[in-house]
């Protein structure tokens, strides 16, 4: 095991060192990433300055939703967010270099970069999470604690899988970054609002096609013991890991097909 992961540890280690080499610039990036998160949270705040309840959630609940969605997304973005830059890797021939090394291509792509600066947003979301957990009236059973942990982990996994899907699509679409972003960043944006405010087709899209509702909204329903809107019963909140497994299966299948398309083995 140690021997197997050593290559990846060395790869990631070299990435980390190169980012921390310029400390002041890194600190600015970190702050910038946190500031963008803060701006988005301000949007939520503005909405609740005008209305008391949105999609059955009050401000405290919306803050919890925002925090969960953003922790998952920013962690995924930190670890794997660069994979949607696939066209750049293709153009520079980096992908060919990956194919000439005795490791899986996706694993090399994932470990080829780590964007620590995006942790700025994670830190902000973490702070909001703590505050919102105190503001909300949550029945702290063991099951609910476990759900919270599972939601964070699965949410991260779901967003990571969305990034891999976005990368896979770009084997076919040469300039497909915008299209792919609609699902990654679009999914993340949708995740921080209650799915009940969307029309039914959108709700289905962001639950069962792009499973971003699983990353935050559905677990929040369980934590606050709220009834879900039509089509999204509360118990779905416990199914976050299943959603993660499902979207990862799609992502890996898509990646495999994309790589086969690239090497010309037929699509």
């Amino acid at each position: 095991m140690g021997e197997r992961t050593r290559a990846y540890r060395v790869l990631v280690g070299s990435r980390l060192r190169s980012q921390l080499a310029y400390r002041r610039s890194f600190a600015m990036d970190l702050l910038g990433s946190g500031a963008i998160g803060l701006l988005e949270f301000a949007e939520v705040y503005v909405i609740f300055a005008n209305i008391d309840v949105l999609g059955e959630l009050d401000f405290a609940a919306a803050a919890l939703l925002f925090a969960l969605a953003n922790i998952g997304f920013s962690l995924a973005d930190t670890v794997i967010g660069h994979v949607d830059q696939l066209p750049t890797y293709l153009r520079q021939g980096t992908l060919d270099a990956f194919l000439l090394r005795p490791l899986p291509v996706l694993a090399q792509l994932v470990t080829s970069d780590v964007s620590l600066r995006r942790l700025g947003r994670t830190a902000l979301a973490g702070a909001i999470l703590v505050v919102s957990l105190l503001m909300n009236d949550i029945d702290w059973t063991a099951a609910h604690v476990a759900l919270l942990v599972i939601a964070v982990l699965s949410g991260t996994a779901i967003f990571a899988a969305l990034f891999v899907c976005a990368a896979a699509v770009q084997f076919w679409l040469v300039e497909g970054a915008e299209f792919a972003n609609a699902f990654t960043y679009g999914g993340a944006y949708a995740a921080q609002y209650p799915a009940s405010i969307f029309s039914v087709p959108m709700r289905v899209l962001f639950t069962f096609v792009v499973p971003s509702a699983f990353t935050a909204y559905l677990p929040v329903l369980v934590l606050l013991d709220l009834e879900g809107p039509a089509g999204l019963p509360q118990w779905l909140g416990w199914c976050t890991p299943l959603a993660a497994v499902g979207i990862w299966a799609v992502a890996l299948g898509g990646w495999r097909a994309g790589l086969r398309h690239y090497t010309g083995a037929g699509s």
Partner: protein
Amino acid sequence: MTEPIIDVHDLRREFTVRSPAGRLRRTRTVVPAVDGLTFALETGSATGYIGANGAGKSTTIKMLTGILVPTSGTVRTCELDPVRRRKVLARRIGVVFGQRTQLWWDLPLRESFRTLAAIHRLEDRAWQARRDELVDRLDLGTFLDTPVRQLSLGQRIRGEIAAALLHSPRLLILDEPTIGLDVLSKERLRVFLSEQRDLHGTTLLLTTHDMDDVQRLTERIIVVDHGRMAYDGTLPGLAARVGAERVMVLDLVDPVASLEGVPGTRVVAVESDGLRHRLAFGPEQTTAGAILEAVGTRGQVRDLTIEEPDIEDVVRRLYRAHSYHDHQQQARRS
């Protein structure tokens, strides 16, 4: 007989090119990049793989190394199917693309070597000894701790070659390794590569535009043209086959306006105000002795040298002999 290190049979690779035709319709054209190549390379050999841009060299290399799947035909590299056994093959071959980097641009070479050793799961003592050998022979010592992005082209290429050889591959494939290098750097690289071959029996396959590379490094050349085999054999054999011209350089005691009209020759250039003349001649038309005799009637020859055929010219002639695309050659020239 052991299996050849590279064994290619009736290899073909097509690309589909889509181009707009009218407002909505698009036409699909299938373009063969490699069109029925068959050849085998023996272990320990050194081969030059030559052809114009777009002749199919890079496509062939991608198929040999498992980056690209053939449309039809078979490839075996180091006794493996390159695409299906890509990861195993990666441990047995080293590949250098002269125009693309495989190093990490922000890492110094020392770190890159450490990372590559981990990727190839090399034993600490073994790879460190190998690294020291490469650092010594390629003279990398002075810039081992400089990030790759700050290296000069020559330094970077040496680093790339060291990186490709760190895991002691049996086969080294070089795609345009000397492109853009100055004469001295090229020379040092050639010395190093022949040395590696003598020392470790590394098989070499290189594509190049630099004919000195071919002359100095390889004993066999394969010329491809539009994806097809145009020639497979030795360099002198190629020159003889196309009837390549040699050039006689004559230095005269007194200037002569022109040496036009010496039987079997063609005036290539008159230099130094008529003191130096270059005459091209084919092996079938005349002999060096006959030329000398004919020139002797017009002026006294002080010195002479004979230049062997320029390989680029030889390849150009070979292409022209491939008559079916004569018109394309002319189109390119006009």
